[in-house]
């Protein structure tokens, strides 16, 4: 469904994403992990058209490199951000409506917005301005607005960051429902390995923009290269 081929992004001397290639299949939950500064969010910015890059990204066998972010959203790739982004001038309902009106190919459908509000448990807060929401609700709102575009792929950037155990469970349940009930393919960047091993079918580990390993989440998390990347050299006795 999504094929990233030899994607490279340089900021001057710094190579943020280095010749990265991977594939995401339809219906899959695909995880991406790596230390801070590994290039995970930059990779999202390449896929969603926010940054130009070298290489190629195919979505449903169509090249999407060079397309503007709004065009990629309309094609069916939607995303959230690591730092929750909302529209403080708009209410919860209108914010989700932005995704539905501008991102959905079928155009604005109020009943679909209502369904999304219920799906992300924000129906009671529909008339609140988004700046007044707590962190969990802001994340739910971001996911809701992204879902309102009716995406084929939803890309989540560290959805669990800053959440407590109860909130993590709520978010995990939501992600499972998005994947199973709505049939949406999910790519998720996350630091919590437990979350990744429970949610994903395939896991990619990157460090300094380069692939360390990619495959079954349990095998990947036990790979010595991944342990070294997160914890330092396992054989280092100092």
């Amino acid at each position, binding site marked *: 469904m999504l094929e990233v081929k030899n994607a490279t992004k340089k900021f001057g001397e710094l190579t943020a994403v280095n010749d990265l290639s991977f594939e995401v299949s339809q219906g899959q939950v695909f995880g991406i992990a790596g230390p801070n500064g590994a290039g995970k969010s930059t990779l999202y910015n390449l896929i969603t058209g926010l940054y130009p890059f070298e290489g190629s990204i195919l979505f449903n066998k169509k090249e999407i490199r060079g397309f503007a972010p709004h065009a990629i959203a309309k094609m069916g790739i939607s995303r959230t951000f690591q730092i929750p982004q909302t529209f403080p001038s*708009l209410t919860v309902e209108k914010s989700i409506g932005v995704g539905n009106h501008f991102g959905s190919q079928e155009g604005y459908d109020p009943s679909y917005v209502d369904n999304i509000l219920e799906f992300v448990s924000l129906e009671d807060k529909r008339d609140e301005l988004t700046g007044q929401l707590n962190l969990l609700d802001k994340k739910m709102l971001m996911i809701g607005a992204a879902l*309102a575009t009716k995406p084929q792929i939803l890309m989540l950037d560290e959805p669990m960051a800053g959440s407590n155990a109860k909130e993590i469970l709520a978010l995990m349940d939501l992600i499972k429902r998005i994947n199973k009930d709505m049939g949406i393919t999910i790519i998720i960047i996350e630091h919590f390995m437990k979350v990744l091993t429970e949610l994903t079918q395939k896991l990619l580990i990157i460090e300094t923009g380069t692939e360390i390993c990619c495959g079954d989440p349990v095998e990947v998390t036990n790979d010595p290269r991944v342990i070294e990347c997160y914890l330092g050299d396992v054989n280092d006795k100092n």
Partner: protein
Amino acid sequence: MDHKRIAIVLAVIWGVVAILPVFFGSTNLYMHILIMCLIWSVVASCWDLIMGFAGIFSFGQVAFFVIGAYSSAIISAKFGVPPIFAVFAAGVVAGGLGVLVGLPCLKLKGAYIALVTFAVHMILEPVLKGDIGRAIGTGGSRGILTIEPMNIFGYTFLSSEPIPYFYLMLLVAIICSAIILIVIKSHWGTAFLALKDSEDFATCLGVSAFKYKLRVFALTSFLTGLVGGFYAHYVGMLSTRMLGIDLFVTLMVILVIGGVGKFPGAIIGAFITIALNELLSPLGPYRPIILGALVVVLVLLLPDGIIGLIQKILPKKNNGLPIES
């Protein structure tokens, strides 16, 4: 403020303004001040739309006004186009230039847009005064000294009889404010606010920054240029003095008093500022000091301007904007 309330406030404002000639109609100076209030209310509202709603720090509004004024004067004088059509042609010229200025601004953010648009303002004076300006009929440093008065269906609007021109400008201001309200209420307004609040998130939800930013540049510069045309045919002469800092500062004061992003605050701000400016004119050099002090006090006490105060007084209602095509 929700749209019904904006419409009610607009109706009250224009209703009150419409009866002002009953009290001031006998004095041409007061009528002239009221006409200027109407003209600047449109320019300030356009500036508020692009800066307050769309979050684009465009400082080119006075430049588009001057471009509209000169264009209408030149089009009517050189090509014999009746003034009523020339003002629309002037709006198209200003709108087209607005799009041209908007294009490089799409790559920029914040203060850099302010710099580019202010550069247009700065460049305009030497262009109008120089060889290029003289070649197209700006009159160079001398300016344009005779501009045909507005004429509609054989009726000539003379500046010596200001009441008819007042009602003509009132009609123009009502139409422009209605257009701005419709835009704010429509999905355009929602797109402007979403792009202002979080451009990356908005674009990743399908909002085209290119399309909506260019639209706001085109619309605001068109309306500003159009009103510039009406100004030219009212005052009957033009010079590049309009590009001085005074007018620019006056517009800023209008927005601060009215409330940035608080339409129709700019309209109220225009009437207060222009009227105050004229009333304080006997004070000579103390006038800008008093106006400046007023701005400082208002920014500290009423950061959201007059409309912010009205919102505080009125019971709270949902501030969100509907998504409507």
